[in-house]
């Protein structure tokens, strides 16, 4: 797997003295959706922040498009073609929806192309066109998430990092947003690294998955295979294994422990 567009090699990142990720490696192939699953505090967001340069790893390297990008400023990393859709959306609340999109295209100069991309984004998220002049702070949570994704798209990135797009959204909206994520991947060939707590929808959207527990990757496989694994079924999808006696075996452990 040497032709991966984004390669993370053995990174270790700390919050002060506390180690958040302990040697994580992963690959993102061009044109694919890769997901990282994990519970609260597993270090999912930290991985994305380390990749986009907000946090600096103590060890290890991040190679994007053949270039080492770890320990660089986030605005520089972004200009290399890596867009980050942050957790909790983080839109600019007092700017209009349109201006938010324009900020997404801040690093670009080609006016015509930008205008075309606004049209493209509006075709994926028609609601944003209606709300074009409203301050982003007045949008609903789902609309803000759509705006955050669109804003990242406006930069025409090579890879998008998506941090918990399902956070705080109703199940119907989650479905809607993931359907659009999948469409963007298929129709635009957008490469994505998706971090998610909602394992079910993430595994059904992505091509390849990593499972992260307290800062370590404990399992990696194609999502089709992951969906078949007992541990994933039980601990991430909540499907209970009714044993021979028709009762749940409460002593059962995860196999990787």
């Amino acid at each position, binding site marked *: 797997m040497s032709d991966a567009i984004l390669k993370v090699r053995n990174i270790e990142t700390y919050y002060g003295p506390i180690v958040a990720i302990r040697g994580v490696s992963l690959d993102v192939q061009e044109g694919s959706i890769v997901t990282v699953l994990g519970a609260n505090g597993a270090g999912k967001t930290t991985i994305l922040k380390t990749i986009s340069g907000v946090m600096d790893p103590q060890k290890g390297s991040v190679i994007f498009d053949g270039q080492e990008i770890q320990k660089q400023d*986030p605005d520089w990393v972004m200009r290399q073609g890596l867009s980050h859709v942050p957790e909790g959306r983080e*839109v*600019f609340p007092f700017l209009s929806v349109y201006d938010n999109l324009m900020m997404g295209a801040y690093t670009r100069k080609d006016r015509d192309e930008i205008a075309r991309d606004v049209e493209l984004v509006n075709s994926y998220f028609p609601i944003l066109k209606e709300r074009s002049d409203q301050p982003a702070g007045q949008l609903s949570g789902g609309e803000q998430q759509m705006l955050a994704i669109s804003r990242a798209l406006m930069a025409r990135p090579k890879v998008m990092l998506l941090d918990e797009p399902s956070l705080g959204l109703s199940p119907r909206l989650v479905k809607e947003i993931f359907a659009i994520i999948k469409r963007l991947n298929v129709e635009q060939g957008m490469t994505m690294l998706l971090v998610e707590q909602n394992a079910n929808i993430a595994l059904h959207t992505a091509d390849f998955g990593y499972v992260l527990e307290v800062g370590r990757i404990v399992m990696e496989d194609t999502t089709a295979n992951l969906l078949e694994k007992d541990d994933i079924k039980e601990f991430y999808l909540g499907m209970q294994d009714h044993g021979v006696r028709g009762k749940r075996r409460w002593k059962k452990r995860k196999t990787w422990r």
Partner: protein
Amino acid sequence: MSEIQCGKKNKQEPSDNYWEAVLFEFLQLVIGGVSIGCIYALVALGFVLIYKATEVVNFAQGDLMMLGAFLAFTFITILGWNYWLGALAAIVCMFVIGNLMDRAILRPVLGQPQFSIIMITIGVGYIARSAAGMMPGWGNETYAISTPFSSQGMRLIPESMGQLVVSQTDLSVIVATLLFCAGLFAFFKYTRLGVAMQASSQNQLASYYMGIPVKAVFSMIWGISAAVAAAAGILLAPTTLIDTNMGFIGLKAFPAAVLGGFGSIPGAVVGGVIIGIIETLAGFYLPPGFKNVAAYLVLLLVLVVRPQGLFGEKTGKRV
């Protein structure tokens, strides 16, 4: 600090209508108040620009104004340049100085507690004041900048209706403030860099993710802020003359910023004008001494009654 000249009283023979005279006197005071209020507004604008973007309260704002005025004095009076050229040069120089100040002094302490950053701005103010006193040609005297504006009054209404005048100096302050505000408004609203500045002040992290060079943008904001302060200093010069301590007027801009709602740009302007008017009226109608404390009484009142100010924004984050 020399006394700020307020509205001109018209010593007129008591006319047939006493109340009319009182009314015109009042209006005359308001005009003077608006003029001095515009200066407060410009200084407050500088406070607010920096505060909005970087959450630093720059206590050296008044001293930046002083430096701007002294630079203009150097260009216009000492070097004998044209007034407009000298004023423009001073504003540009202050833009560069503000920019460098952020780069050299404030950026290295980024991430330190608020308290230390505020202490640094106070320290910078002291240094600026002392340095200006030591500069050859500047010193601790009081100086005047020769301006093309006369302090002679111009009639606002025909003489038959009454006496209401505005001096060219006051008018220049008001017009320049309006122009500056309009310019800044257009800049923030319609230019890419201006919108990026708004974005950086609203959400620093997200701005980084957009590829906006946030640190450079913050330095630009410091530059703009210093430039606006310089403009205020130059406009104030004909009224109060310039000396190294003129920066203390920045302390009066502070209530103006709070009254408008710290962090609101239109608020700073409106707050400045209101403080100017209140101060002038207090100086005329109330016993001596009230003129100097009026602004701070307003500050206390605002903090008690409406802490978010007139235009304060209260918004929660949607989760």
